[in-house]
């Protein structure tokens, strides 16, 4: 698959800091894949996202060593047009309101206005995205009057509507209840089905296990593990390093430890059920 973003020997310092927030990062992001980014607080996940989008060092300044390439061109060489390529949803929903629009409809439409999209097309796309993100009922409300969870959906909608090929989403579910969280993941899944490349920071590991293709694990500014989700999330040694793993993986590991004949460690519920059933069946046949 085609590489859309590449990090080569990236080390990044925020201004006036001595310790890099991200160090020695080498990574290729491939087109159409869904990457789940995990790691403890302060591990550098947000900084990593900002690097991919060029906000670091473009906006935060600071010092960048190595290079970040988006479709082969350095992020520092791009101007405003990177916003059409990469959609970015921030961690804090409260600052993601443009501050110049007084209805949710206009808020979602704001980016398309900046892109100069014709009026009829804006209307069609905004309505479609409001349906998809389930915020149509809020269309005429003032964006400042929304709850945290509602703002988070509006922020997501405002970026999805731009139809970028790459989406970077930083903890979109921090303000959401379990149901809202599931629905956000379903939205992201739908985006993936449209061949978008997705980079998602998320602490809810069970959902990462369910939906992502690849997992990137950060620890103290280092990318300590990356690769296929089944490989990473079944690596029980990560538990000792403070990385949370799916409940079923822990269960699987414990079962294996106790001598239960599992083929390998499951990472999703479906897998676990299937594997345990198979093992039980084999067990019976052996007996």
């Amino acid at each position: 698959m085609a590489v859309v973003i590449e990090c080569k020997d990236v080390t990044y310092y925020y201004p006036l800091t001595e310790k890099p927030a991200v160090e020695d990062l080498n990574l290729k992001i491939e087109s159409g894949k869904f990457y789940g980014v995990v790691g403890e607080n302060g591990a550098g996940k947000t900084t990593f996202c900002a690097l991919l989008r060029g906000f670091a060092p473009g906006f935060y300044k600071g010092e960048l060593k190595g290079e970040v390439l988006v479709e082969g061109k350095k992020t520092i060489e791009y101007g405003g047009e990177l916003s059409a390529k990469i959609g970015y949803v921030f961690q804090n929903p409260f600052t993601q309101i443009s501050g110049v629009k007084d209805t949710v409809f206009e808020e979602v439409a704001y980016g398309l206005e900046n892109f100069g999209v014709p009026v009829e097309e804006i209307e069609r796309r905004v309505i479609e995205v409001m349906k998809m993100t389930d915020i149509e009922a809020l269309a005429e409300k003032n964006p400042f009057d929304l709850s945290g969870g509602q703002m988070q959906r509006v922020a997501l909608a405002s970026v999805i509507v731009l139809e970028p090929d790459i989406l970077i989403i930083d903890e979109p579910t921090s303000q959401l209840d379990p149901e809202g969280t599931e629905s956000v993941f379903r939205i992201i899944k739908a985006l993936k089905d449209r061949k978008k490349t997705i980079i998602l920071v998320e602490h809810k590991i069970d959902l990462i296990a369910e939906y992502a293709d690849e997992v990137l694990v950060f620890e103290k500014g280092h990318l300590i593990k990356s690769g296929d989700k089944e490989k990473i999330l079944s690596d029980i040694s990560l538990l000792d390093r403070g990385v949370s793993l799916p409940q079923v993986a822990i269960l699987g590991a414990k079962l294996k430890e106790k001598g239960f004949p599992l083929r390998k460690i499951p990472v999703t519920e479906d897998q676990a059920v299937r594997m345990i059933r198979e093992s039980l069946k084999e067990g019976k046949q052996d007996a």
Partner: protein
Amino acid sequence: MENYIEKIQIRKSNKLAGLYPSTKALIVLMYAVCTFIVNTIEVTDIGLPLFLIPQFLVILILCKASGVLGRCIKALNTVAVVALIILLVQTFLVPGGDLIWRFGILRIYERGLRTAVSLSFLIMNIAGIFVWLFQTTENKEISRALEDSGMNYKAAYVFTSTLQMIEILGRNSKTIMNAQKARGVETEGNLIVRAKAFFPSLVPLILGAVISSEERVLTLEARGFTMQGPKTHLFELKKSGWEGKAAAASVLITVLLLAGRIMLWLL
């Protein structure tokens, strides 16, 4: 299907309220000029610019004709209170000229009365015309007009978001006041008690605004704010059709008033 684009438009049936913002700005400017001219017409023995008082009727008539008198009254009341305070303070505190009136320790001097009347009614008139402007015009009309007038889109953004922010800050300060109260900070009572409560409450308010404005820059960037090329506007600014007439009338009245004033000098 809901017609959202139609819903965000502003349709005014009143031809005056619906004037194009730049025409309204011209009216405001002309009104201010007229006010300063009227201020120079001094009557009575001690030269008070008393015509400023009946001039204020023009504001009321303008608001009434624009169909917003009800909404304007509240703001005009506030303006009147401020003007009254200025009137009293200036009347009793500014010395100079003949002593006109005394009662106990209170004294009114000629100069004091003159500056008091002039200043307070100037303020009444000029603040009044701005009340009319803002009560008949919505923020997004102003910002759209600014952008159309060739103002840089970044400057227009600063203007619009400031108007929005004032509204939001007002709301947030109430929330923060309530939070302070919940923590036992006294926010009611006399002026000193309230001042003591007020300044600490500003700290989170201002810090919050500064931090979020930094992050907001990134949000705007992600939404293509700095994208090159023409932008689309969902909101269309409409003319009411009376722009020509209104502009001509306001300029004409100002010119006539000025001519009249010069005549008075010459006579």
